[in-house]
């Protein structure tokens, strides 16, 4: 895992940037997806209305979350589904383990669930001697490479097809040097077919849980969630408490937004509804909090829970595109991850709200209108107040604020060779200044505007 190194976003991003052609490739790949999103969005004249509607539905959900969750639970139980509640990642993982243990199952197939990444379920189950195979192609690739996903929708977007060929050659026996995506996909398909047919347990994520009916919906392009769930005797569905939508009719709003925002497709290939178990099989839903109710209690940050995990904020983010998902050292990378992660561990993720220029593109592609960049700004204030900012930065900022609060100090600083900016981090012209590594300093003019203006005024008199 990249976060095992204890390195911060700027350090990891600097390493990523050592290979500039690779940065260009990563940036262009994600920008291409952003453009696909634009094409799809512009085909719908009602796009902005859809975003607003989705946002309001989710606001309503967050304001009445406990009611909807209880309604969902009651309806799910009525449908013959077994419902579990997990306060945190540990409880979630233990419930999964117990369900498998009761049935003597030691191999499970999984379909993409970012929640289980957040809970580090794979590592936990491995320690308990249970083998988990991720069945989404991208997820399987990073699993074979022993890496975490770098993107919530496109988990192996950081890998080139030649590298995937090497991984498949090593693990799945494809020909050496084979990098044709069609052949590689077929290799994975054959390998996964055996997995689907032999696993007795399947775990999936949940995209939407409908309070009105107690059913849940999973969106995939590969159909692998269905394949796993239909062939297994137990289907475990893990969902965060925020996945609720009130009624079935609301689903259309979200399905129209989700993949257009995520990959630039009009809709996912499979939007599968799960309501009641087939005879002889069981469906278990684990409803997970893991810090979400704390976030719900933070007024400035609660609406981050509106997120439907489309990844559009990552594709559009110039910092994400040029630093790679692993630089964020958390399960959910990019702008949305940077406002979610500090809630879980403020010290560990104190760097993430600063990994942004506050350009605001994220908030404006977001299909549920989360004010991501405003929350990044607000997290910065919280992190500094809680004392997770470097002491050197605090000293510099205090000195700068002191100078800029006094017209006299400001002016005399200017006269001394534009020294007014001596505490501004970009204004020291030496090799230690990070600005200077790739950029020249602005040239200091003979006189400031203020000085010019005084002379002009005197001249006029």
């Amino acid at each position, binding site marked *: 895992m990249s976060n095992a190194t204890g390195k911060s976003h700027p350090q990891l*991003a600097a390493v990523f940037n050592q290979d500039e052609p690779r940065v260009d490739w990563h940036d262009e790949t994600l920008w291409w997806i952003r453009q696909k999103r*634009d094409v799809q969005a512009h085909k719908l004249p009602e796009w902005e209305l859809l975003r607003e509607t989705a946002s309001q539905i989710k606001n309503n959900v967050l304001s009445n979350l406990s009611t909807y969750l209880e309604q969902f639970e009651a309806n799910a139980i009525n449908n013959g589904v077994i419902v579990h509640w997990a306060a945190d990642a540990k409880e979630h993982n233990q419930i999964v383990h117990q369900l498998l243990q009761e049935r003597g199952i030691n191999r499970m197939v999984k379909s993409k669930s970012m929640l289980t990444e957040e809970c580090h379920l794979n590592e936990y189950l491995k320690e308990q001697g249970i083998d988990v195979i991720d069945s989404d192609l991208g997820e399987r690739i990073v699993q074979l490479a022993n890496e975490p996903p770098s993107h919530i929708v496109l988990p192996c977007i950081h890998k080139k097809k030649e590298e995937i060929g090497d991984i498949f050659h090593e693990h799945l026996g494809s020909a050496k040097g084979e990098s044709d995506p069609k052949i590689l996909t077929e290799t994975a398909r054959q390998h996964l077919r055996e997995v689907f047919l032999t696993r007795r347990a399947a775990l999936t994520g949940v995209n939407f849980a409908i309070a009105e009916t107690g059913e849940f919906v999973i969106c995939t392009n590969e159909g692998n969630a269905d394949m796993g769930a239909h062939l297994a005797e137990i289907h475990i569905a893990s969902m965060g408490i925020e996945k609720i939508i009130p009624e079935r009719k609301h689903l259309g709003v979200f399905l129209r937004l989700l993949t257009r925002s995520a990959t630039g497709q009009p809709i996912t290939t499979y939007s599968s509804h799960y309501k009641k178990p087939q005879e002889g099989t069981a469906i278990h839903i684990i409803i997970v909090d893991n810090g979400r109710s704390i976030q719900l209690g933070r007024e400035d940050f609660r609406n981050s829970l509106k997120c439907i995990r489309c990844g559009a904020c990552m594709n559009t983010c110039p910092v994400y595109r040029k630093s790679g998902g692993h630089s964020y050292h958390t399960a959910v990378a990019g702008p949305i991850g940077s406002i979610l992660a500090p809630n879980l561990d403020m010290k560990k993720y104190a760097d993430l709200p600063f990994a942004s220029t506050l350009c605001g593109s994220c908030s404006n*592609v977001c299909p549920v209108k989360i004010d991501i960049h405003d929350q990044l700004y607000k997290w910065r204030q919280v992190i500094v107040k809680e004392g997770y900012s470097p002491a050197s930065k605090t000293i510099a900022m205090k000195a700068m604020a002191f100078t*800029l609060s006094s*017209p006299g100090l400001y002016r005399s600083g200017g006269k001394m060779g534009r020294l007014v900016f001596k505490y501004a981090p970009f204004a020291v012209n030496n090799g230690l*200044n990070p600005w200077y590594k790739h950029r020249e300093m602005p040239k*200091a003019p003979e006189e400031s505007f203020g000085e010019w203006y005084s002379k002009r005024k005197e001249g006029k008199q």
Partner: protein
Amino acid sequence: MKVALFVPCYVDQFYPKAAIATLELLEKLGVEVHYPKNQTCCGQPMANSGYEHLTAGCNSLFVDNFSGYDYIVCPSGSCTLHIKEHLHSPEKEEQAVDIRKRVYELTEFLIDVLQVKELKSHFPYKVGLHQSCHGLRGLRISQMSELVAPAFSKPAQLLDMVQGLELVPLSRQDDCCGFGGTFCVVEEAVSSKMGKDRVEDHIEHGAQYITSADLSCLMHMEGILRRQKSDVKVIHVAEILNHSHE
């Protein structure tokens, strides 16, 4: 109409020409411009770094300097946005609220308030227009590419009035330049790469000048252009609009 000129600290210290052009341009358009001489900084460098609680001094100074004008005009979208969103003063909150409503970025002031329809400027060069993020997505002086909404651009509308000027198209019309205040040093690698790529887009499309309604972006891109020993120059939009036949 009594207008106060708000010259951001780094413009005052490093780019006085842009402020001079703003002043001259407004005067040419018949505006009575005042320059409150005890102004310093809007406080954004501290606030965006997480130290908004240290900006009380800057805020109070700002309120003292800029109260009582019809409009406050600034040649920087970013600083204007900061005042609009974050100017508070516990003792003088009413005045702070009033200022927040009266502060305008230069191009939006020219289009929305003065309703400028023609200019006597001349600038016979190929120019790339960089949309600063705070002007674009914060003040909405242009339409951003993220939204499904009609296109417009106040800076481009003004540049179209300039004789001889040719605006070059860009591959990415509103990607960020990577300055981001302290971001430019904290995230040096990503920031520089973003700046490099933005500059490259303008150069590829034949721009001789890169202009913007925000000097912080231009300062960043100028740093990169000068390191590359490029002939391409940066110029604030006010300097172009104020540029006449020589």
